[in-house]
């Protein structure tokens, strides 16, 4: 580390005003604060002193995403080798295949997103902020694995510029940037984001795992199958036609967007977020409560017209992106509600809308993304109502005392 410190000190003068590379000052500052703790702290005013800063918060979220990411790689491999009829392949090979399949998406997401952040910071002579660290890893986890890389790049660029930079950068955005990326993909290239060909990688990754798909192959996700289900009972199957249970969905060995399939991995992430206090348990719990309530309500009136209403409430939570959205999207502190009562309302409505869209809107087999984006828009209003209600109550109390 000492060598690195010395090197950073040595090249520092070039980046200061007057130096050769002063145009890249914020790039240097960004790298320095990424590698070392900044040696300047605020000296005056009432600040809360805590070892936790933005960088550490972001890193905690990234760590919490690791189980989902690692499992996603394994599951991509698993689905692939199932599809080409080699289910006996060892788990390590499967994982390596998934790693190779996901790596380009991760690289593209980070290069494009961070590139725009660096350029933006440079133009405005501001510090580079760490906001994209989490977004950059969320995007590969929620974009279907077969999304072409240039689409990921276009959508990431669009989201970072129009959902984040124009609002003032990290911490000022109204909508969750990763979800905007997915929404751009979803509305811009709908054929790539749903249906049979989006969610299971059937071709080789860097020459690995080449093979033809078996005849019984069908890449539809469980929710996709439910949306097109006909008849009074649901029959779900995996990519080669074998039946699956809610237990499979809980473990995550089903087709879907990389990060969303495994409830176990997501719950480990949730535990990390809650123990470190990074995410709000109020939001997280109320999303699940809202989802359960809406799913239970719909399950009381099951109807073949809306096949998803035949799914049991617990199964609703396990399938699709609901749990991932609840743990990693809804709890985004920037775009969510901040008052305590507001957080309960905000989370509960996300849960309700996610299941509502999923069951009763035939056009969208999954509603978690749209529900979170919708409630992002309403979060400031909820906060405003809670605060003004509180002010009114306290004014009344004060007046009564006199």
């Amino acid at each position, binding site marked *: 580390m000492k060598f690195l410190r010395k090197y950073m000190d040595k090249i520092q003068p070039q980046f200061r005003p007057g130096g050769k590379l002063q145009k890249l000052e914020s790039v240097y500052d960004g790298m320095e604060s990424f590698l070392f703790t900044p040696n300047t702290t605020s000296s005056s005013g009432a600040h809360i002193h805590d070892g936790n800063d933005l960088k550490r918060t972001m890193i905690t979220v990234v760590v919490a995403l690791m189980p989902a990411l690692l499992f996603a790689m394994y599951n991509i491999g698993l689905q692939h080798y199932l599809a080409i009829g080699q289910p006996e392949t060892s788990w390590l090979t499967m994982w390596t295949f998934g790693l190779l399949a996901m790596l380009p998406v991760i690289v593209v997401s980070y290069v494009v997103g961070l590139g725009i952040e660096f350029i933006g910071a440079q133009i405005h002579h501001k510090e580079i902020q760490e906001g994209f660290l989490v977004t950059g890893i969320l995007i590969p986890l929620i974009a279907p694995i077969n999304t072409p890389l240039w689409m990921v790049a276009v959508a990431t660029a669009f989201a970072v510029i*129009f959902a984040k930079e124009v609002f003032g950068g990290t911490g000022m955005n109204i909508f969750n940037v990763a979800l905007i990326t997915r929404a751009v993909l979803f509305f*811009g*290239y*709908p054929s790539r984001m749903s249906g049979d060909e989006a969610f299971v990688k059937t071709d080789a990754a860097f020459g690995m795992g080449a093979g033809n798909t078996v005849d019984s192959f069908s890449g539809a996700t469980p929710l996709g199958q439910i949306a097109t289900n006909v008849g009074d009972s649901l029959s779900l199957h995996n990519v080669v036609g074998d039946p699956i249970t809610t237990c499979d969905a809980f473990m995550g060995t089903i087709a879907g967007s990389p990060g969303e399939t495994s409830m176990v991995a997501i719950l480990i992430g949730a535990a990390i977020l809650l123990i470190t206090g990074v995410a709000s348990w109020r939001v997280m719990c109320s999303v699940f409560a809202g989802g359960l309530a809406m799913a239970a309500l719909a399950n009381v009136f099951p109807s073949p017209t809306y096949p998803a209403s035949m799914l049991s409430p617990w199964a609703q939570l396990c399938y699709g992106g609901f749990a991932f959205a609840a743990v990693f999207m809804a709890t985004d502190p920037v775009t969510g509600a901040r008052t305590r009562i507001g957080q309960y309302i905000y989370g509960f409505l996300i849960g309700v809308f996610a299941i509502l869209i999923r069951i009763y809107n035939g056009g969208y087999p999954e509603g978690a993304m749209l529900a979170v984006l919708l409630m992002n828009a309403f979060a400031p209003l909820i906060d405003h109502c809670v605060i003004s209600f509180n002010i009114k109550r306290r004014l009344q109390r004060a007046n009564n005392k006199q």
Partner: protein
Amino acid sequence: MLSKKNKEALFNPLSKDNPVLVQILGICSTLAVTASMEPAIVMGISVIAVMALSNVIISLIRKSIPTTIRIIVQLVVVAALVIIVQQFLIAFDYDVSKQLSVFIGLIITNCILMGRLEAFALNNRPWPSFLDGIGNGLGYTIILVIVAAVRELFGSGSLMGFQVIPQWCYDHGYENNGLMILPPMALITVACIIWVHRARNPELMEN
């Protein structure tokens, strides 16, 4: 004929006083008719025609209109002109008039129109009013055409209905962006144009 004041009436609305970019008027039709270029151009020409003629008519009778009922008089004039334009389109360009559907009829509610009648035609002679109508109509049309060009190019890969993006690109994995066809993209495109326009004209920036 083209004194300094008249020149301003004609050319200012093209950029410095553009009805869409600076006054943010007429946004509804900008969203509705800009998915491709052909209806956008027809819509623009219709608005120019209605605006120029209604400006002249109102300016001619401006001294005899009682102030209390001037809005109603303006609406009658505009409505009559809009119906003429609509019938003309149905007669000569049926397909486009189908595409534009109610939006030709809704020219009557276009804020730019009423705004120019109130702000200009009621206080000026017919010739400057005519130029003002042409200028504002052109300012509106330019924005409409730019937005439509961007949306049609990226949304359908064509311009004026002709394929622009070569088949070679599609063979190599390029796809049209469906989001461009949806109305929200018109707003974002207009926002980008405003962004560029303000950056080039810093004196227009609001605090």
